[in-house]
């Protein structure tokens, strides 16, 4: 059956289509911004500005350090959110009493955009590193909890029965049957959380900070340096793509059974 599929598949150069889309995007960008009185820089302007920024620090901080500052905030908060979020999600999904107590509360707070917390967080914690990390934490925590919780709740009852019938005790049932079954959804939650974490760090830095990629965007905006804004956007995209790539690899390593026959 598999053979048939393979021979039936015609050779389609999909990568050519991908390149076509990129060319159209950058071509369109160039055409729309090429006139001298355009207020948006051309792709070439952005590249030029990028190399300038590489050489001269902005606000006394070199580019790579701006990136590093943001990365540190994201990873610190993300790690905390991953640990606590998975824990909270498992407790919600596995223990009915815990669910009855905390789920309504969680559900009530969940739809509040993390960015809406910024004023209160700043009020409570000032403008140091901690408040920014708390914003990122709130953003990352929510999807991790949600994915973990729904995965635990939706573990195939047949698989749980198989575990019970094969003699798993309550602890083994959770750790050796239910949780392994949830790993793919948990990782999907981590991926969502990572992109939200990036959004949050940029937002938090745009409002109050002296370094970081969000600060760069803000500085570009204040100085009408649109090329700098766009350099920052490209940097954010590149770092995000790298992190997603790493998380995808991690998924392949942790869930080898998912890549079978795909």
């Amino acid at each position, binding site marked *: 059956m598999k053979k048939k599929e393979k021979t039936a598949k015609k050779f389609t150069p999909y990568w050519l289509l991908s390149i076509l889309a990129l060319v159209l995007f950058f071509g369109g960008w160039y055409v729309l911004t090429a006139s001298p009185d355009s207020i948006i820089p051309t792709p070439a302007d952005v590249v030029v500005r990028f190399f300038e920024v590489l050489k001269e620090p902005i606000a006394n901080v070199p580019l790579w350090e701006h990136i590093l500052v943001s990365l540190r905030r994201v990873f610190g908060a993300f790690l905390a959110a991953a640990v606590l979020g998975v824990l909270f999600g498992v407790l919600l999904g596995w223990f009915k009493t815990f669910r009855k107590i905390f789920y309504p509360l969680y559900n009530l707070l969940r739809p509040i955009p993390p960015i809406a917390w910024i004023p209160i967080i700043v009020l409570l914690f000032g403008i140091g590193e901690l408040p920014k990390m708390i914003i990122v934490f709130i953003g990352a925590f929510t999807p991790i909890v949600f994915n973990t919780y729904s995965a635990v709740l939706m573990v195939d009852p047949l698989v749980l029965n198989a*575990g019970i019938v094969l003699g798993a005790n309550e602890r083994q049932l959770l750790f050796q049957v239910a949780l392994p079954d949830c790993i793919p959804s948990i990782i999907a939650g981590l991926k969502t959380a990572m992109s939200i974490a990036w959004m949050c760090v940029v937002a938090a830095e745009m409002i109050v900070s002296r370094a970081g990629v969000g600060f760069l965007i803000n500085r570009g905006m204040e100085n009408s340096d649109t090329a700098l804004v766009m350099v920052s956007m490209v940097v954010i995209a590149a770092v995000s793509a790298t992190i997603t790539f790493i998380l995808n690899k991690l998924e392949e390593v942790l869930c080898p059974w998912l890549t079978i026959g795909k």
Partner: protein
Amino acid sequence: MADNREVRIKIRNLKKSFTDKKHNTLQVLNGLSLDVYTNEFLVILGPGQCGKTVLLNLILGLDTPDEGTIEFSGGTPAKGEVGMVFQRYALFPWKTVIQNVEACPKFHGVDKAKRREEAKALIKLVGLEGFENAYPAALSGGMKQRVGIARAYATNADIMLMDEPFGALDAQTRYQMQDEILKIWQSKMTTVVFVTNNIEEAVTLGDRIVLLGNKPSVVVNEFVPNMARPRNNLSQEFLEFRNVIADKMDLALT
């Protein structure tokens, strides 16, 4: 003949119903009584939805009856002491073939070298040598159920419950698996309770065939196909026996 055989599971007057949120009660088993003899290959034949899986779940202790008793000679077994082969395989997708097979000994804390060795022997018995490290997703339906059978036998239980284990397989694979399950049963000396809704499968396999009616179910008939194995499903004897059961099944359903 049956009278001087040892009863392994004695089921008496079993009743089970489910009540939904709107307080509608669905009576599934309605006073079912049944003896399962030691080391026999018992087939439970019944139409879909008649409560066969519910009955097996009660025997396994996954659920409790409203009324009636299930007694095992030598006391009620703990979890992991009765083997179960599931209708939809119920394999652990994140475990390889060998990890699935050794699941029960692992839960029971058997040391790795020992359980690996036993698992390998069982994998050989079900004809999956070379697939030890494959994941279930990479296997065909027939192969998945071979893993299910090996995993059940790894409990070392003397009772094996099989819930329509070949129901999802194509005809050819099904015939092959029927041959093999008989060989495994003969080599391992276990009491098998094999559930099916397929008359031909019942006549091919059973020492004894117990027919359930539509729910609310009870045992409506019992058949003993005194035919030597392997049974030829085209022989006159086989076809006649089949028709007798088919007639009774039609009656039971109307």
